[in-house]
């Protein structure tokens, strides 16, 4: 399926990541945005609100984030592609309903323009500290898909991708952008509608009386119907059987909700590799940090260290296999993150003790200093032995505040 | 002041006199005090404070009756009145 030319604002624009995400959503055929203003994501909501009447989309600003995500659930079940846009504190409020969406397998997209936390933190500054929350934030067992853009162009592209994945797997998909990408203004090329591939909703095609809401196809994803087509749907967020009726047994659909992502992980996972053929050190990064990492890698290559970058485009599901594979032939992994260690734990898990793992932490607010990443790369080259646990690299900023002295976890 | 009839307590009533103090560097130049001063004591000045705003200055100090409306209407805690020590003028 191709995009509708009416929805796509073809051309070359000079816009920021937030606006690009809104344009991406519209191009993907998103017809509903339930939002609530929160810095630094408001630009996206504003852009959507301005364009909405032109393409027949609906924008509503709800009374809070709990309300806005709940409207998205309803809108999606009524047959429209729907999304919400928020930032850290709003994301925390949405946690309960994310579980609801996962349970009822509602396709929806959340754009989280991350800021520094915890709590109110620094509203106008960048952070990457919601990555684990995106995966584990709601109670119970479920799986999500997250994408992490590093430029306004990618904000546009990945938003479309997010909608496609949401429709394909009927799962919550999150675009984990950050303030830096959100407020960065760059050239964004919006292609023509017939160049944009969209995943149509998996609509049920059989006879009406035979429809079973949660009877999965071969890829474990069940087809959907819209509300108001005469199917007399009953959906319940209680554990349910294939008919959607409450079933008090863990052997209900819950297992499949997890499996449909885990077993299809190879199709979902997308990564970008650069210079890994001869690499001795691998920088694992995502989002805005990967842009900073490139600078460090350039410098390291200049000084003769063989460094490659492994960029996570889908952070969840995590590319376990590839990291394990790489670990067997490299000296170590450097993981720069704008937090005090989240994805680095995943890397450590997948390395299975075959290589060193160095975390370059950052409290948030700004991006890394490339020198710190370079320092961490050199640290791995220097290392004579395997570290016990993750080595937390002491950044210049930490030294400035707390004085030097090596701290190990 | 002129009265049609002389009030009985006119000898006891004193019209208070006030002295306006402006903390120039706190002012953000909203103009509320100038606009709502009932005796037109204040006016926006030409000078800049350290934040780049034009603070008011006391144009007619003798008019001030210490009503303190400017103090109440200042969002920036930049202006206040104190009662003058000297005796008020009897009408």
């Amino acid at each position, binding site marked *: 399926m191709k995009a509708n030319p009416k929805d796509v604002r073809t051309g070359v624009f000079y816009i920021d990541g937030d606006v690009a995400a809104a344009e991406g959503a519209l191009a993907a055929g998103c017809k509903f945005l339930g*939002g609530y203003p929160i*810095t630094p994501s408001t630009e996206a909501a*504003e852009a959507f609100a301005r364009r909405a009447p032109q393409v027949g989309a609906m924008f509503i*600003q709800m*009374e809070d984030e709990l309300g806005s995500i709940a409207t998205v659930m309803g809108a999606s079940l009524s047959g429209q592609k729907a999304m919400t846009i928020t930032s850290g*504190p709003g994301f925390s409020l949405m946690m309960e309903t994310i579980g609801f969406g996962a349970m009822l397998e509602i396709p929806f997209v959340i754009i989280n323009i991350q800021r520094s936390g915890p709590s109110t933190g620094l509203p106008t500054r960048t952070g990457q500290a919601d990555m684990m929350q995106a995966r584990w934030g709601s109670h119970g067992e479920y799986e999500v898909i997250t994408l992490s853009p590093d430029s306004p162009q990618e904000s546009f592209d990945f938003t479309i991708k997010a909608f496609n994945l949401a429709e394909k797997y009927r799962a919550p998909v999150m675009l984990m952008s950050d303030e830096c990408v959100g407020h960065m203004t760059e050239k964004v090329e919006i292609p023509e509608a017939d160049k944009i591939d969209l995943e149509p909703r998996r609509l049920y095609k059989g006879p009406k009386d035979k429809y079973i809401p949660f009877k999965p196809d071969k890829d474990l994803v069940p087809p959907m119907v819209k509300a108001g087509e005469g199917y007399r749907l009953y959906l319940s967020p209680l554990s349910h059987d294939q008919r959607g009726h409450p079933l008090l047994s863990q052997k209900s659909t819950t297992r499949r909700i997890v499996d449909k992502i885990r077993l299809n992980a190879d199709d979902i996972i997308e990564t970008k590799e650069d210079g890994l053929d001869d690499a001795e050190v691998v920088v694992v990064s995502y989002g805005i940090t990967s842009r900073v990492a490139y600078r460090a890698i350039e410098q390291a290559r200049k000084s003769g260290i063989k460094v490659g970058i492994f960029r996570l485009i889908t952070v969840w599901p995590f590319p376990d296999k590839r990291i394990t594979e790489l670990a067997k032939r490299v000296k170590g992994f450097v993981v720069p993150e704008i937090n005090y260690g989240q994805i680095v734990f995943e890397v450590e898990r997948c390395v299975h003790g075959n290589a060193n793992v160095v975390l370059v932490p950052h409290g948030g607010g700004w991006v890394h200093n490339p020198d710190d990443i370079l320092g961490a790369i050199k640290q791995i080259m220097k290392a004579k032995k395997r570290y016990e646990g993750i080595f937390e690299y002491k950044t210049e900023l930490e030294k400035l505040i707390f004085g030097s002295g090596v701290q190990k976890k | 002041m002129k009265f049609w009839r002389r009030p009985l307590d006119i000898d006891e009533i004193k019209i208070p006199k006030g002295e306006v103090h402006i903390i120039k560097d*706190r002012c953000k130049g909203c*103009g509320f005090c100038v606009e709502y001063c009932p005796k037109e004591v204040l006016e926006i000045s030409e000078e800049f404070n350290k934040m780049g705003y034009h603070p008011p200055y006391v144009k007619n100090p003798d008019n001030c009756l210490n009503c303190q409306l400017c103090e109440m209407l200042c*969002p920036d805690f930049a202006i*206040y009145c104190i009662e003058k020590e000297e005796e008020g003028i009897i009408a």
Partner: protein
Amino acid sequence: MKNVKHPMDFYLRMDRMPHIWCTGCGIGLTATAFVAAMEKAKLDTNKVCVVSGIGCTGRFAGYIKLDSFHTTHGRAIPFATGLKLANPELKVVVVSGDGDLISIGGNHFIHAARRNIDMVVICVNNFIYAMTGGQVAPTTPLTAYTTTSPYGNFEPPSNIPQIAESSGAVYVARWTALHIRRLTNSIFEALNKPGFTVVEVISPCAQYYSRINRLGDGLDMMKFYHENSQIKHWEPTDNLYIDYQKEIIVGKFVDRERPTYSESYKKWLAE
């Protein structure tokens, strides 16, 4: 400047001045009125707490030199509830904006009023979400423009005094930022009244609401209040909707007696 002392400085965190509010904003005036009311009420300043949520008015707590708490968006009232119940000696004042108290915190507002928890709620209503850049608020009048209602607002706004009264508040008043002395008096009365008391302050937002709607600066808004506000005490609260650039009814609308939560709780336990 350091030697000059404003008479209200005692109640302010002078190490944080100047505050973040823009030129012509009414939140500063609310602060002035609050401080004046505090001076008048002669309360033990050690026992007064100010709780704010998020937003422009959310910064209120940070400038008042009392025990002051800047909490999360919409949750100032439940936080204050905890403070009050755990230490009934405290006098708790919640100062927050319309979006914070009525939109995201609307549920808490209703229920705290229903329980009649002893607190003063000062709601600064500037018709817009200003901290995030001018989005539509639950109080934005019909037809007004905001960044998320670029074609004019078509959602009917909330009527804060009516919500407060119907939920059970014992004291409800509304003033504009211009009615500074009456506002001070209302806050003073609210501070002295046990129970859930609400004072709504109509405040100019010179940077967003009036800029987007081309209504001039803060002073122009004040002049507008001067010409268009009508004092009608005891007006039935269902008449208090605010239309775009139309008459604003201000005054004291509700003043009644109900047992507070703490009183009822004690009585209940004693039985």
